[in-house]
């Protein structure tokens, strides 16, 4: 654990050094220095406008995540428990998952218009498929010996699902949620970049329009920290589910 922590610190230090070198190489008009960026990020965090954008992104991302997780797990469970439906849906889900969703953006805009619902929809279509695929496979891959054990213990099918199949499938489902939530954030931010009137993605695009390099990097860094924190939190949940404690 300590050596892993050391690795993380070394990695962070390495990134900072590279960043500084890049800043010296290309100049402040292209890449601001790490220190200037951190200072600007702290400054931004003291403004009301920043928190308005952050709140807009957070609420869109939060809602999109809830919808993607609920619908993705629901769909995945159903497909996992119904062999035939799963066999039919498996290649379809795989194909839809691999489509670049950005091509659907004009359609989403036409349907949902500018605003939070388009962002949410765009987040959901990024997140729902990986979650559904992981969940379906999680249920399908539960070791057959668990089902046999349940039958020898004379459990009802409801008790089997609740006390054996669900916990056995949980680690894989959490992995799917982790991947899905990361993609939901991506989808939400892309939605904000292209057509929105608020949110961190919108703030980023506006900073690009006025060529405020330090702002661009400061906002990017804050988004990165947020995404990394969400991922780390879900990683913790995943480890707990996998090792049972």
């Amino acid at each position, binding site marked *: 654990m300590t050596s892993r922590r050391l690795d993380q610190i070394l990695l962070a230090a390495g990134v900072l050094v590279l960043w500084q070198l890049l800043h010296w190489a290309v100049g402040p008009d292209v890449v601001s220095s790490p220190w200037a960026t951190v200072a600007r990020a702290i400054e931004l965090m003291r403004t009301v406008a920043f928190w308005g954008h952050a709140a807009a992104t957070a609420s869109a991302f939060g809602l999109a995540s809830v919808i993607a997780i609920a619908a993705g797990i629901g769909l995945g469970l159903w497909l996992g428990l119904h062999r035939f439906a799963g066999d039919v849906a498996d290649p379809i889900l795989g194909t839809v998952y691999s489509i670049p969703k950005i091509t659907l953006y004009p359609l989403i805009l036409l349907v949902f218009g500018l605003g939070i619902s388009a962002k949410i929809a765009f987040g959901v279509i990024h997140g729902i498929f990986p979650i559904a695929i992981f969940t379906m496979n999680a249920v399908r891959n539960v070791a057959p010996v*668990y089902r*046999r054990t349940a*039958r*020898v213990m*004379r459990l009802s099918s409801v008790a089997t699902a609740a006390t054996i199949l669900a*916990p056995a499938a949980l680690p894989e489902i959490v992995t799917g949620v982790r991947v899905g939530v990361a993609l939901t954030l991506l989808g939400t931010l892309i939605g904000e970049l292209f057509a929105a009137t608020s949110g961190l993605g919108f703030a980023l695009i506006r900073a690009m329009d006025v060529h405020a390099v330090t702002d661009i990097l400061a906002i990017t860094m804050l988004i990165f920290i947020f995404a990394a924190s969400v991922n780390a939190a879900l990683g913790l949940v995943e480890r707990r589910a*996998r*090792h*049972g*404690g």
Partner: protein
Amino acid sequence: MRPSVWSNAGRAMAASLDGQISLRGVTKVFPGHDGHPDVHALGPVDLDIARGVFFTVVGPSGCGKSTLLDVLAGLSPATSGTVTFEGRPLAGGVPDGIGAVFQQDASFFWLNVRDNVAFGLRRRGVGGREIDRRVDDALAFMGLADFAKAFPAQLSGGMRQRVCIARTLVLEPKVLLLDEPFGALDQQTRLLMGDELLRIWRETGATVVLITHALDEAAMLSDQVAVMSARPGRFIDIVATGWPRSRDSRIVSDARFGAITAHLWDKLREESLRAMGVGDPPDNRVTGA
């Protein structure tokens, strides 16, 4: 010091030698699909396993040993014939009083050892204090007391299999079905688990039905060894070993152990060769055992 739960179990041994499990004309045919023909996996077989006996089934791979176990556990219905447990025909599902341990690791990775062992009792709505007592006994009996808080991921394969055995024994089964439970373990662990199994059998008084492909294991552990033919599986021989009830793995040095193993191998070799369509040249043929 023997845990209290197990001390009364020996009494079951005094019971009659009636067929606790009886199979009459049992067959199992798996229907073919996608143009494949039906697979006739088992039988017809007749079999009586008396109460308290250590009964082992050996046979060439794919001969329907596991199908037999599924059928007599009630996990899979017979295509024809009748299976009776304690005189009552199986009516869909596993009857109360049958426990099973499989080759694959079935320990619940999300529960610690104690909760694994308590699982079945909790599902049956047994009272908390009763659960604690019986789980403590089962953990002590299987040498798991020091690992009660450990999770399966922290244990070796052999220890995990002990957890599965403890989880089954705590429900006090009258028949313990074991489908190659040591198949995934190394040789040394297998021998030690064999001793463990004999001790469990002796002290619980349960009837044990073991499926294995290891002839030495069969010869060492069993009162009776049934040799199965290639598919469709039928019994071509049932050998009574005549071992004393107090045996352990040291009987492998007994001269009769070699003779029994050789006899089983003779039967099985003949059958396996026949199944592969290869016959011994007549002058090479091993003469009768």
